């Protein structure tokens, strides 16, 4: 038995030098009330008087006992404040040593799901201003994700239009647990606006949203919730396929974040079989479902699947296609993946560089 299963050192000099695109970094406020400084006074007063209330406010966003408070235990900045609230420490711990050429921010926040729609619009605008002020204007390697008040379609489109000319924003965030299934027509203008500007739509399985975390209701335990994160984004992807969104908008790109990827290949097999038998019900969906996935959908890696036989991960990746998968770390959360250690399974060098960097470069145009 060797000291370790996987040698921690990079395998080759080329690997050491491999630049990485990280599709999922979670920046934090320094203090819980930091967002108030970015709200106009009318909404700052509102937040103080009435609170910030998403529809799941009965349980809150953190109803489950997350491992270690949900954070990597080595990610607390020595200067104080929560993990990923200090840019200097993020550089030193994450961006520099892992050779990250671009890191894409995902702000997990209640803005898109606030019940007061005017407050939702104001909060989302504040989140976008905060991203620019605290991160995008400070660090050229970081890119932003446009946060939108998605349940007010007109306001959501207005927020996309307001940010689309800023090249530091590279995609639009959409919460997959919205009021209606993600492919329904109330959301089409959002997808049209994103596609028009060449901005991918990213669905991250955030703890927020209007609906429960599984289709059958809320899970009881954190272990269950951690697994259930795949559920809403599977539903979102199938909804966009069968509502005809991808057929209508062939330039729309959908990025599914933190919901796993192993399920995607068998789901495509199954959808294709049923579509071949029952497609007369939905003639507007002219292609096999897997065609849309292979043309318009990408999935991020973290938390990477870990089969009992590690080598089986290679089969999962090849069934789906190494061109569909983009590396994400989830920094600074406890279930973080390291780009140089999460795929030690004998992939071809071109497959590895596709996953770690090249697919994201192509999707986002870096």
């Amino acid at each position, binding site marked *: 038995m060797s*000291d*370790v*299963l*996987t040698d921690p050192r990079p395998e080759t000099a080329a690997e050491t030098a491999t630049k990485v695109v990280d599709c999922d970094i979670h920046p934090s406020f320094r203090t819980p009330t930091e967002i108030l400084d970015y709200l106009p006074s009318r909404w700052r007063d509102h937040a103080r008087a009435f609170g910030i209330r998403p529809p799941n406010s009965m349980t809150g966003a953190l109803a489950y006992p997350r*491992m270690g408070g949900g954070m*990597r*235990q*080595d990610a607390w900045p020595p200067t104080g404040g929560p993990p990923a609230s200090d840019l200097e420490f993020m550089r030193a711990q994450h961006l520099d040593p892992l050779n990250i050429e671009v890191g894409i921010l995902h702000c997990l926040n209640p803005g898109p799901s606030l019940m007061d729609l005017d407050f939702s619009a104001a909060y989302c605008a504040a989140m976008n201003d905060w991203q620019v002020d605290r991160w995008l204007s400070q660090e050229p390697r970081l890119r932003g994700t446009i946060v939108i008040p998605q349940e007010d379609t007109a306001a959501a489109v207005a927020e996309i239009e307001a940010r689309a000319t800023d090249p530091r924003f590279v995609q639009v965030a959409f919460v997959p647990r919205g009021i209606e299934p993600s492919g329904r027509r109330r959301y089409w203008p959002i997808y049209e606006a994103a596609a028009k500007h060449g901005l991918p739509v990213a669905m991250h399985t955030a703890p927020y949203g209007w609906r429960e975390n599984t289709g059958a209701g809320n899970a009881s335990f954190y272990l269950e919730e951690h697994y259930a994160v795949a559920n809403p984004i599977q539903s979102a992807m199938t909804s966009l396929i069968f509502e005809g969104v991808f057929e209508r908008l062939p330039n729309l790109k959908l990025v599914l974040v933190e919901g796993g990827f192993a399920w995607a290949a068998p789901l495509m097999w199954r959808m294709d079989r049923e579509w071949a038998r029952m497609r007369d019900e939905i003639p507007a969906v002219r292609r096999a479902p897997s065609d849309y996935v292979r043309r318009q959908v990408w999935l991020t890696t973290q938390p990477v699947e870990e089969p009992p036989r590690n080598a089986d991960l290679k089969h999962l990746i090849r069934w789906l296609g190494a061109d569909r998968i983009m590396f994400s770390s989830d920094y600074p959360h*406890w279930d973080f993946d390291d780009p140089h250690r999460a795929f030690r399974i004998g992939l071809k060098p071109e497959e590895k560089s596709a996953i770690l960097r090249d697919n994201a470069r192509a999707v986002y145009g870096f």
Partner: protein
Amino acid sequence: MGKHVICRLEELPPGSSRRVDIEGREIAVFNDEGRLAALGNRCPHEGAELCHGLIRQFFAAEGAGEYEGTGKRMLRCPWHGWEFDLSTGQSYVDPARVRVRAFDVDVAPGEGLSEGPYKIDVYQIATEEDYVVLTI
């Protein structure tokens, strides 16, 4: 190979840990409530630095609600929570396949340390102080 003086004992107070790099190895050294321990610094799972991990007692459970402390100390990886016996490096997650290497680490009085077989790169040894000595 040999014994290495890595720091003064007062620089590794109870509850603290540090990483040392010796002979091309990264080693995590812990002061667990006065007892010293040393393990390879990298978690075999995804390579997190174990020197940032938490040390806790290992509890054994016969069934729900029936548990007792074993007195064994375990180190929990700072990322995904893999647990290792602090004294042997044995994994609690997958004992048959996974371990980190454990190293001998002791306290030695300064008196006599400046003689062999110790390797002292950095420290001026004062005879009135205690030092942490790692064997690899």
